[in-house]
């Protein structure tokens, strides 16, 4: 959108609002009286999101309906990770949301990049891993251990897939 802030109807009086410094109360600039919330625009330095297909120019077919366009527009630098890289992707062949290459800076081939979450049309969530994650998130020590195992001590994405994505998820079970 490119606007510096946007008014929002709602939220006044909530504890959510009380704990945010990017949303404040402000009067309507036209009548000078009516109060509503004004939210500061988010301009992330970097956005990273995972999609079904991308081409080498950065055209993206998300594979599912997503808010990817607004996210890409807002962010200074956009990195897309994709299950599959194709030669040329046109909007009319996109599944779900299409993101044009002008909004995308980098494309990374990352099969199973959604793991342990699922990827629409490709593989479901890894429920066993999800349970481990939930258990690990209960305290800082357990979560530190989780990060060490699945993030810091992993050599590469291929190493992660090899070691942690269950074989049954890796079977080619493309569904519509």
């Amino acid at each position, binding site marked *: 959108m490119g606007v510096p802030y946007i008014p929002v109807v709602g939220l*006044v009086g909530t504890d959510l609002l009380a704990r945010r410094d990017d949303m404040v109360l402000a009067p309507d600039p036209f009548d000078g009286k009516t109060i509503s919330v004004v939210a500061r625009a988010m301009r992330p330095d970097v956005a990273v999101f995972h999609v079904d297909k991308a081409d080498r120019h950065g055209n993206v077919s998300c594979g599912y309906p997503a808010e990817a366009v607004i996210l890409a527009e807002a962010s200074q630098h956009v990195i897309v990770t994709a299950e599959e890289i194709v030669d040329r992707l046109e909007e009319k062949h996109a599944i779900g949301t299409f993101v044009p290459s002008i909004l995308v800076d980098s494309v990374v081939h990352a099969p199973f990049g959604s793991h342990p979450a699922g990827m629409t049309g490709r593989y479901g969530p890894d429920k066993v891993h999800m349970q481990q994650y939930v258990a690990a998130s209960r305290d800082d020590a357990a979560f530190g251990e989780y990060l060490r195992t699945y993030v810091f001590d992993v050599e590469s994405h291929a190493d992660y897939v090899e070691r942690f994505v269950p074989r049954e998820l890796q079977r080619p079970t493309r569904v519509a």
Partner: protein
Amino acid sequence: MSVNLNYNEAELMAVLMSREVRDGEVSACGALSQLPATGLLLAKELQAPNAELIILNTVFRPFHTSRQFHFLAQRGELGLFFASGVQVDRHGNYNLHQLGTDPERPEVRFPGGYGGGMIYYCARRTVVFRTEHTRRSLVERVDFISATGSSPANVLRLGNPSKLITPKASFRFDKDAACLRLDSIHPSYTLDEIRENTGFDPGVTGPVATTLAPTTEELRVLRSVVRPKMIETGTYAAWAERALGLRV
């Protein structure tokens, strides 16, 4: 007190919710909302054939992104929304975020985010429902305000809470007094039982009506039209199969 009822609790709540739907309006509910989804589909078969329904994350939705839903609400196009919280208080505030007295160290966290606190101001009417009617769920003051029941006159607000529906009773939101008042008691319950299980003063000033029980027609359509429709369309199918229809 033992009374033979020909409906179960889920059916009662779905029927009561369906009666809130008006023909021609846009009526919606969020994710994980089996009871409102059932109520919306029932209303569409009964008094509201021209209602536009939005049941998020099911086939009954006109669009796919949350941005479209957000701005539909902001434009004031929602007539009715169904919301729930783990706690609801006397002033119509509800809590879908966290429990505990120290906000920095919650005892339990819930999936509450931004949507409820926004829509409460935007939908013309919001019906809050709670499947547990106890002193821990209906409280004098919620631990965390996710959505605010009332607001000062100079704050831009397009709509207000309308009702609170539980398995035992219905409350009406009194906008002037900014509080919930007991509206009707469901069949088989007494005012004493309501007082005993409600963590705030139910604001009773006179005799309280008994809720009109689900009618034969409402139950027939619920069981023979809405239930199969939910199963066929994958709209909380497993839940509908299990929860709707009285086992005798």
